């Protein structure tokens, strides 16, 4: 091995951390070399977040040893961690969005000019230089709020660079990014490694890990199960280690019936034009394309959130008029949106209330608490929602269980057509499988599904047919079984872009 020649930035031995009776970390070993991208994978609750918190100084371990830059520590304070050059790039941005890019980089350490006033010219110049050196082209005077989520993440990275970070921890950096943005971010990660920065990269997307990782460590139940050289391991091995069993969900073959929902010439100005398709009974119709292709806008019209300018939506041979989500729900069309937290979840309310909310416009104004509790307990059981009970706050459930809670509310009113927008985003691999199983279960009961997804594997594995959208137009509808990932990607971007993206 050539590893002994390299500079070891970080070594963790036998790290242990408990919260009350829960053991979050139970003997974690981990190391990081300069210029290495070391990926960390594991199901939710495997201990990834706790490990990050310890490294950033937010939590103190109970036992174990951390050797950072050659010096041993029992724990870090947040200040020590930053000072040593450990920077964490968080999922939810830690930026002040109402000020400029340069102001954010220098926040708290402004360059002072005459009369102890901020020298904006110097700040903007230095910020631009810093970003150029990373190949980023964002004007230093842009307001952060006008940046895309990807650009905001990149800005956080640049800011960390400015503070001479030598270790960068990235927690699910691409979970809210589209295809091109992900590619741009991965490029930046490679550049960081080239600068001899050690990157700890956490992601649910194994594809990314194989693209940029040098090594990968699998965490399970608070233990580091094994560390692999990325060149000597494959996806099945990693998932097996994460789950402790064989995986990869296979949807049983389906036999869709006749058309249930027909969309004709549906258009909404600036979003999509002349969309035509039929959804069949018991079918999963996937919608693929790059972010901004108009897929979510189309689903919003089908769920009554936005209005179409022209065209028809025909349900069971009857044209329907959808002017609010209420109308759609009454027709049996329901949506499980992509942005669960903002658009679906009542995080301060109980799991029970989150599910029962859809009953509100129906029937008696009074609540039969006993019957309700019974119905919801049955749903919790049926969907396998892991919870302390129906009274648990929805905000404290894991991503996968939150997603199931949203699905449960629509099962409560026996909906017919389910619109899933990115059904497994932010969901760990175990819960992901269960959601696939639930979707397959719905179709075998004759329910139909429209599924928007940016995950090629998911689209191909789950869909009967895939509708490809590009620039607001429905380009083609293909049979999922006829396609490879590469071909599908080619359709998303128009063939000329295929090589760079898939390359």
């Amino acid at each position, binding site marked *: 091995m050539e590893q002994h020649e390299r500079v070891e930035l970080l070594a963790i031995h036998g790290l242990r951390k408990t919260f009350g009776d829960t053991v979050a970390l139970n003997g974690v070993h981990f190391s990081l070399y300069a210029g290495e991208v070391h990926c960390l994978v594991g199901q939710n609750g495997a201990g990834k977040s706790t490990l990050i918190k310890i490294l950033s100084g937010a939590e103190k371990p109970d036992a174990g040893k951390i050797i950072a830059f050659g010096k041993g520590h029992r724990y870090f304070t947040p200040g020590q961690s930053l000072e040593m050059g450990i920077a964490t790039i968080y999922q939810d941005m830690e930026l002040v969005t109402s000020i400029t890019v340069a102001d954010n980089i220098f926040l708290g350490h402004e360059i002072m000019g005459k009369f102890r006033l901020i020298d904006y010219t110097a700040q903007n110049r230095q910020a631009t230089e810093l970003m150029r050196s990373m190949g980023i082209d964002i004007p230093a005077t842009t307001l952060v709020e006008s940046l895309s989520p990807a650009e905001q993440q990149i800005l956080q990275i640049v800011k960390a660079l400015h503070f001479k970070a030598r270790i960068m921890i990235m927690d699910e950096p691409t979970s809210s990014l589209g295809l091109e943005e992900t590619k741009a971010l991965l490029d930046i990660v490679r550049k960081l490694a080239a600068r001899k920065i050690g990157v700890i990269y956490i992601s649910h997307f194994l594809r990314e890990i194989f693209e940029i990782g040098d090594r990968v460590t699998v965490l399970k139940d608070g233990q580091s199960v094994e560390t692999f050289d990325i060149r000597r391991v494959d996806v099945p091995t990693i998932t097996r280690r994460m789950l402790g069993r064989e995986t990869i969900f296979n949807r049983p073959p389906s036999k869709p019936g006749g058309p249930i929902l027909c969309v004709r010439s549906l258009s909404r100005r600036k979003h999509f034009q002349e969309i035509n398709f039929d959804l069949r009974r018991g079918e999963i119709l996937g919608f693929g394309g790059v972010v901004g292709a108009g897929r979510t806008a189309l689903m919003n019209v089908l769920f009554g959130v936005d209005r179409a300018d022209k065209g028809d939506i025909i349900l069971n041979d009857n044209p329907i008029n959808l002017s609010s989500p*209420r109308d759609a729900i009454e027709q049996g069309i329901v949506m499980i*949106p992509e942005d669960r937290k903002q658009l679906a979840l*009542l995080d*301060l*309310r109980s799991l029970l209330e989150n599910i*029962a*909310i859809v*009953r509100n416009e129906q029937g*008696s104004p009074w*609540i039969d608490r006993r019957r309700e509790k019974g119905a919801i307990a049955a749903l919790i059981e049926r969907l396998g929602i892991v919870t302390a009970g129906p009274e648990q706050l929805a905000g404290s459930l894991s991503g996968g269980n939150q997603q199931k809670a949203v699905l449960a509310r629509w099962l409560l009113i026996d909906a017919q057509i389910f619109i899933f927008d990115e059904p497994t985003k932010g969901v760990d691999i175990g819960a992901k499988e269960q959601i696939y199983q639930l979707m397959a279960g719905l179709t075998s009961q004759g329910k139909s599904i429209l599924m928007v997804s940016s995950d090629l594997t998911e689209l191909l594995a789950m869909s009967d047919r895939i509708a490809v959208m590009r620039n607001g137009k429905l380009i083609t509808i293909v049979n999922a079984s006829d396609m490879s990932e590469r071909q599908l990607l080619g359709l998303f971007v128009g063939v000329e872009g295929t090589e760079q993206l898939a390359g």
Partner: protein
Amino acid sequence: MSALGTTIRKRLLANQWSFLLLVVILLSLIAGSVNSRYWWVGNLTNLLGQISVLSLVACGATILIISGNFDISVGANIGLSSVVMAMLMRSGVFPPLAAFIGLLVSVLCASLIGTASILFQAPSFIISLAAIGVFQGIALFVTQGTIQTIYGQFETLGGLKLFNLIPLLFVIALLGYLVVHVILSYTQLGRCIYAIGNNPRATYLAGINVNRRKMIFFAINGLFVGVAAMLLLSRVGAAQPSTGTGIELQAIGSVVIGGAPMSGGKGNALGTFCGVLLWGVIGNALNMMRVNPYIQDVVVGMLIILAVAVSSLRLRAERASLE
């Protein structure tokens, strides 16, 4: 401390209301030891009467705040509707009918704020702030700024004591709390109050007609305010445009002290009741302890800040232990 003691302590501190009740009892013990007249039945029933009007206003505020809305014009609303009641009674209208018309005025005023807030998609806080001037101005215009005395025409509500002991006012206030509790816990409307306060967009996408619900919340608030105006008029025997001034902040304060966050989505009737009780007991206890009236406001303010500080620290500790 024994394991049992620890569980009891945890249970007791688990709810905002039980914490407030503890404070109330503590304050009462102090006041009672300084001046034993604090425990006299006359003083206690007087205390209950004193908090009745605030209770009803706080009942309405509970529903609005949990749903993420505010109506800070309720003080001015009381001024206007009680003046309307009093003027009608003076001009010879049958008093209960006059009171009913005043009640309608109050519901109308509150509903207007809800309508404007929905129509212009503006925060109800600002709309109701502006409405204070409108309501008070109208009241000043119709009365020409004079006090409207009704000379004992409408005393029963305010003066009657059940079993010669419990003020009818307080019984009505208790009914108010009961109504709020039933709405919040046993009706679909109550679920919507919490849901809309927690996440209005998600509630809309779950198929709820959020705007219609919001209108209902404001109308219910108007109903509570109208009854409060009625009780106040009956108790005082006169109304003027400035009647009710300042009660909105006490009401909002009670709800928030009672455990509802300013951002909505949480809270309950019992919490509000304890918040109101705390407010009432502080005032009464200070009187009993013969604290200089000029200093009383200072002490009231400081005690409220203390109560809020302790409960907010407690909530933070609770949240930290959840994570």
